[in-house]
Every structure is written in C-alpha cells, then in structure tokens.
C-alpha cells in the first residue's frame, strides 16, 4: 500500500530520533499523532504541570515563554542541554498545509537551581555554557501558505528572536532533518565536529515530502535563504 504523506513524516521522525539518541543529543522525545476533522496533526503531546516556575513581571519575556513551554511539555525534542525543538505538521488529506519548526535555546544563567541537586548528565554541558554571551536565541521556520502576503508574509520564512515582524523569506519549506542539522551545526559546534554521522547521512533513507519552491519573484529580489535543493 502507498504510504500516506504523514506516514512518511512519521518514518522520518523515527529515523531522526534514532540519530539524536545515538549522538547523545536528546533526552526526551514527545510526539503525538491526532486527527481533527479531516486534518491530521503531528505535534507534541501536551501535559499540564503549571506553576512550577516563579514567573513574575520582572522575568524576561523569553524566560517566561520558555517556562510555559516546559510546563506544558510543548516540545518535540528536549536536547541534552535542555534546549528544545518543536515540530508541528498539519495535513489536510494528503496535503501538507502547515509546518513549523522551532528551536528555543535554554536560557543561560537559568540553569543554576535545576542542576544543583545532581551532576550533569553530559560532561560538555558546562563548556557550552561557559562560551555563551548570555543572550538566548529563538528561531523558527514556518510554512504557512494560508497567511501568504507577498514580501510581508512569505509562504515560508525564517523568524529570529521574538520580533513578530521578522520574516526572512526562504525559498521552500525544509525537511526536519535539515532543520536539525542546521541547529546542531550552528549551536552545537563541538558536537557537530564529532558527529561524522550527520555529515554522511544517507538522505535517500528519508521519505519526506518533495517540497516545492514557495518564494515569489518580489521576495527573490530581497535577501532570502536558499533552502531548496
């Protein structure tokens, strides 16, 4: 029987999870596959563990956002340094109508209390923190054609930080494996160097959807990210 597109994505998620585990990058994976009407959604399985944090008005917005995500288990992968990756897919029948990949870096300086009752489970964690300026980053690649508005809201775009107007056009949606590779390469350089496996990933194992080019002519005249093959 022919695989449904979401089944292909499921297969890829399994492969990626395997790699992340093998390379000591993830400590928890959290996916749920559910149907709402004709739509099939792949998203984190949410739980409620509210009021864990002491979030006040003084708490930086990024930190309180991060706390909320953690409290609700709104993550797909929890990385070894407690940073998180979110993946969301929405299918309508066989069509992918929405896709969101997010990386939230663990707020530095925030780890104090949480690591004081036990040693870290990864010896390189402290090295990462030592080399950090202390300004955590959030980045997101969205594919959301429904809200398309040329240049202002490209079908696929990269958002950086918490600025809602930041939508850097990208030429096409990207595969999850590419997003993970992008994050690991740019945020976990030391790991990247030792992750030969990542460099030699046999892409043919991945069955992810053939993404088409989504960038329009006006957007191409601006600086954009070339993401299509």
């Amino acid at each position, binding site marked *: 029987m022919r695989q449904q597109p979401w089944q292909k994505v499921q297969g890829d998620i399994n492969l990626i999870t395997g790699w992340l*585990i093998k390379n*000591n990058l993830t400590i*928890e994976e959290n996916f749920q596959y559910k149907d709402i009407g004709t739509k099939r959604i792949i998203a984190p399985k949410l739980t409620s*563990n509210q009021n864990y944090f002491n979030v006040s008005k003084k*708490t930086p917005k990024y930190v309180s956002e991060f706390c909320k995500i*953690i409290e609700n288990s709104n993550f797909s992968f929890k990385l*070894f340094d407690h940073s998180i990756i979110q993946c969301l897919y929405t299918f309508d029948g066989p069509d992918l109508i929405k896709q969101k990949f997010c990386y939230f870096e663990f707020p530095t300086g925030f780890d104090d*209390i949480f690591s004081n009752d036990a040693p870290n489970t*990864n010896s390189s964690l402290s090295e990462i923190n030592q080399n950090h300026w202390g300004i955590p980053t959030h980045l997101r690649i969205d594919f959301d054609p429904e809200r398309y508005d040329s240049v202002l809201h490209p079908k696929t775009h990269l958002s950086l930080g918490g600025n809602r107007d930041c939508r850097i056009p990208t030429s096409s949606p990207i595969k999850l494996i590419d997003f993970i590779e992008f994050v690991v390469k740019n945020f976990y350089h030391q790991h990247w160097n030792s992750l030969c496996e990542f460099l030699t990933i046999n892409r043919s194992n991945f069955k992810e959807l053939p993404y088409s080019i989504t960038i329009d002519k006006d957007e191409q005249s601006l600086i954009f990210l070339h993401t299509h093959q």
Partner: protein
Amino acid sequence: MLEIIHGDRPKAISSCLDQLISGIMSKDATSLLGVLYLGYPLIKTPEGTRSVPALLVSEKSGAIAFDVIPATSEMDITEAIQRQDNIYNELEAKWKKFPEILNKRNLAFKLEVVTFDPFDRIQKKNDEPFFLSNKDQLISYLIKQSRPTIKKLIFQSLKSIVQGVSKLRTPKIRKNTSPLTLGRRMKDLDEQTAVLDIYQNRAIIELTDSPQRITGLAGTGKTVVIAGKAAYLHAINPDLDIVVTFYSKTLYQQYISLITRLYFNHNQDEPNWKKIHLMHAWGGENAPGLYYKVATENGCSPLSYREAKEEFGFKQSWTGSCDKLLVDLKKNHKITQLYDVILIDEAQDMPPSFFEICYQSTREPHRVVWAYDELQQLNNEEILPEPKDLFGSNNDASPRFTFSDSSDGPEDDIILKVCYRNPKEIISTAHALGLGVYNPDGPFQMYEDSDLWNRIGYRVIGQLKPNNEVTLEREPDASPKYLEEFLSGTNLIELKKCSSSEEQTQWVCEQIHQNLTSNELQASDILVIFLGHPWNLLKQMAPLRLLLKNLNINTHIAGEGPAAEYFKDDSVAISQIYRAKGNEAPMVYILNAETCAAGSELMIKRNRLFTAITRARGWVRICGIGSNMDIINSEIELVKSNNNKLIFRFPEDLANRRKLHGELSNKAKNKRDKEITNLKSVLDAIDDGSLQIDDVPPSLLEKLIKASRKKG
C-alpha cells in the same frame, strides 16, 4: 488498645478535652479498641471549615463524634443541637461517598454525635440523651449503650477513610491482567497501599509547639506525611504560611498532586498556593526557594549555585551557602520571621545551618518539622548532629530545642516504622550491601546506636560493641504482610553478570521487552538506573535507548531539566542515581553495578547501590560487567542463606574503616588517577615492546602478580 491522635486543639476547649480523654481512657472504658482523634476530621460549617473536637472510632462502639462546650460558652440548646446535626450531616455526607463502608444506602455502622458539656453551660429542658455533663455520664454512655460490633473489614475501611487517604494513590489502569502476572500483582498491591497506618496518621495530624522530627526509612511514607501535614494545617487554618521544602526537584510534582488530593479530602476545594509555599530548599531568581527567599527578605545576597560551586566546590556548595547565610543573618539584629510552619523533606541532605535558618525564619513557637532517613545520604558520610544541636543555642548556651520528656500530648519525635515500598528481602539486601555487612573483611560502615536500628524497624540481637557477634533482623511488623503475599513466588532480586556492555544492554532490553509483552507491566512501571558517572549517562545509555526504540518501546532520561516529569506514560524512565531519589517503581534495573562493588570510596559507592535497590516496589535486577559482580553476588547470596538476617562481627576499628572507605580528598583522587596512568604506561610499554619484560626486576613482577592474584 485505644490510640489517641492529637490534632488541632483550640485553646478554649483544651481543658474540656482533657476531661473527655480521661473519661474515655478510664479503666471502665478500656475495653474500647480503636482510635480517638482530637481535632479531626474537618467539616464544613456555615462559619467555614472547622475540626470535629473529638471522634472515637472503635470496633465496639462504631463512630462517636463529640462536640465540646467550652467554659465560657453562651450557646443555647437550639444552637447546640444544630451543631450536633451539622457534625452528623457533614460526617454522613463525607462517608457516604465510600461504598466500602455502606450497607445499601446507609452507613454500615452506627454514627452518633454527643455533646460533652462539663461546665453545664447549656440549659436543658429535660434529660437530653445526647448531652453528657461529666465523666461518669460519659463512661456510662460509652459502656451501657449497646451497639452492634462493626465488621473488621468495614472498621479497617472506616479508619482509612477517616484518615482521609483512601484516594491517595489512583491505581494505574491495568486492563485484563491475568492471575499471577507481575502486572496483576502490582494491581493488587496498589489497591492495598492507599491506607495509611497509625504512625503515619499520627505524624500527619500531630503538631507540637516546637520543632518535630519524623524518622523513617525510604518507603515509609515520609513524603505523604509531609504533604498530609501541609494539607491538614492549611485546612484548619488557611491563614498560616506553610512551607514545604526539599532538595530533589523531582519531588515537586509529587507534592503538588499529593497536597491537592489530601486537601480536597478535607475541604473539597483547591489549596491556596499563596499560603502553601512549595519551595526547593535553594531556589533562585526564576524558581521559588527557601534559602533564596530568606536571604533576599533579610537583605543578604544569596549565592547562585554557580557562585557557590566556585566558592566552596561542588560537594560543599550547599553547606557553604547555608553556613554563610547564617553568619550574615546573625549580623542582622532582627531576622524576619516569614512563615508559621516549615516542613522539611529529605532533611538528611540539609546542613545544620539550614535548620537554624528555618528556625529563625519561623514565627513562635518555631514549628520546623523535619522528615529524614539517616541511612540515605548520597554524598555525606556524616549523619546529622543530635536534634538538640540542630537549631542553635539560647543566650545562656542552652540548646534552643530538646525533645520533650512528657508522654502526653502530641509527640515531637515520630517514627514511621513500616516500610511499604520494599519487601523485606529487598530492604535487607540493600542494607547488607550498603553497609558491607557480608564483605569478607567485615562491614565498612555501621551504626552503633541500637535505638536507631529499632527506629528503622530492625531487631538487634547482641550488643553493637567492638568484636561482638550481632544479628539484625527486620521486625515482623516493619513490612506489611500483603507485600510478601502478593509478591510471593516471584524472583524479587536477580543478579546478572555480563561480560560486556553490549551483553548488558541486550539482556536488559530483552527483559524489558518481556516485562511489557508477557508480564503485563507498563512502560511507566519500569525504572532503569545507571550507576556509572552521570556524565556518561547519555552516551552509555544510548545503545539501550536505540535497541528499545527499535522494538517500539519509548524511553526518556528522567528528571533532567526544570519541571521535567520523572515518569511518563508509555515511556521507560532512565535515570542517574541522584535523580532517582524519592522515586519508586515496580521494576528496577540497576545498570553498571560493578562500579559500586569495590575500590576506594566504597561507602559512597555502596550508598548509591543502596539507594538504587530501595527504589524497587517489587523487583530489582542488578546488572553489571565483569568479575566485580561476583563480589556483589556473594554478598547477596549470604543475605539469602542467612534468611534475610544481617549477621556480623561488630568491627573494632570503625573510625579507621570509615576513613579508609570514605570519600577521598581531591588530592588523593588525583594521586590515585596519576598512579593508574603510570601503571598503564608501563603496561603499554611492555605491550609495544619498548620495555622488555626481562628488564623489569623480578621482585617488582612478583609484586604485581601477587596483587593481581589477591584480586582473583
């Protein structure tokens, strides 16, 4: 025998209650079996939540609730009868929710409400049958009224319902389990353990006007008691600022759920989290913590973990921070008293200065309650100082706190004797390995105080003095009988010696697969504890996670990062030992146990093994690699052949042993590592031919051979 549990005791009725107790306890009435609760349970009244002044639950008399009229009361008969009706209706409504104590639509026992009015404040028209004016009337009421005896089972259920814990643990949903599978046994066990025993119940309700100690081994219910105490105190006095504090952050979720449930039992409402302060002992800018709060409120600057680690080193970071804060606080003339009650769990992990900080931060009468397990300290080899030395001293150098000598009233030293979590076999084995009882050279760690052993449920035969033969044996009532019954016929402890890491991974993977496919356990019933260094956890557990993933079994590294759930549905928890504390699971796999078998710092290593083993509610599989596993095996076999007794000669050089097997200084550690590197380079040189073996003096070679023979 009639047990008395001293709960809330409003001053106005205190002397009336004394008369009531003396009546009930008088010789004529001693045939009563059961429990007398004072200030318990709590009921809703038009004026808010209040406690029933006294409730007698006994097999012979059913349930008799007492209202008590204080000497200064202006109450009239109508109001007094209304109060009786209110108590009756509230208790009946509360209890009717539990089918196990019903007979069709009625309570399966007699519930009576009487008013005890020793000062005759109520003007009665004629002889009201439910008003008692003095001790004699009380006694004759108790004895002469003929009542049907309650059936034993109903009495047991009633006791547990009165104690407000019948819904403490929601048993997991386990569908279609077949008889005798591990899953079915756990199901049966879960249904039993919801009932609190009298020790726990006393510990929850009784509160002294002073600090109070609660001692118990792992699995005796210390966390439940602390949660129950917070819920009860919050219910009787919602204005109190109550702190619940602990060191392992994985306890946070347990507390939220326990306190919510227990409070709901009293008040059918959500607790007010602005008055129950659930706090990590340390804390920081983003997370509530007691140390942090006390420091900032008093104008002292708290140290973050990182700063403390830099100043005092990893091991001393917590103690150093508390010591420093206490010194800073003492410089202030006045310390802000922020709270009414501070309940400390895992008190064995706190330094003495933390206790004094708590004492100083509570309002009179300094209600600091500490629950601790003296045998469960992962890093410290020192046990906490005597209670009198914990809270500092007065101006005249006398200790601020000593245990009271009086045997009346609430107790300030409560012992939780019954270990509900671990079957006898597991707990004895854990102690034997933890202390090295069956180590060929004798124990390397031992407690000399026989009182301590009694407290944790052991009978001591022989004197705990150098060179004496001593036997320690679990008291029969220190483990519930049902535990052994439900688990009988299964292999509680199994040791697996592997020749390689791959073999260990393979074996554990197969076992877990079998647990899930044929033993009817669920993924969340299984806890894998890695005993190697936490730094290597991710790397060393990756192969197991991958193998399990290939079998569609999810796993997660448990309790890492803020607000992380320890156990997750449909996922096997994999944990380092420090995070495993305070958690329990039906099936525990201990991996790389060989790292805790021999070598230096044995006390610490064996302590880890002890903690790991005592996580098991049912079964423990101790796995490891190489010949070190033989050491553990032979010690386990001796526990078995001695029928779970710990029999040993008390060492004469205990202090030396502690030194020898205790924690190494950094200098000593470095020296050890350097010697190993030296030896390795010598052996490598022989291997690659750069050092000819014939050039090595024969005497050195002989020494090496001898040393390796000794190791076997």
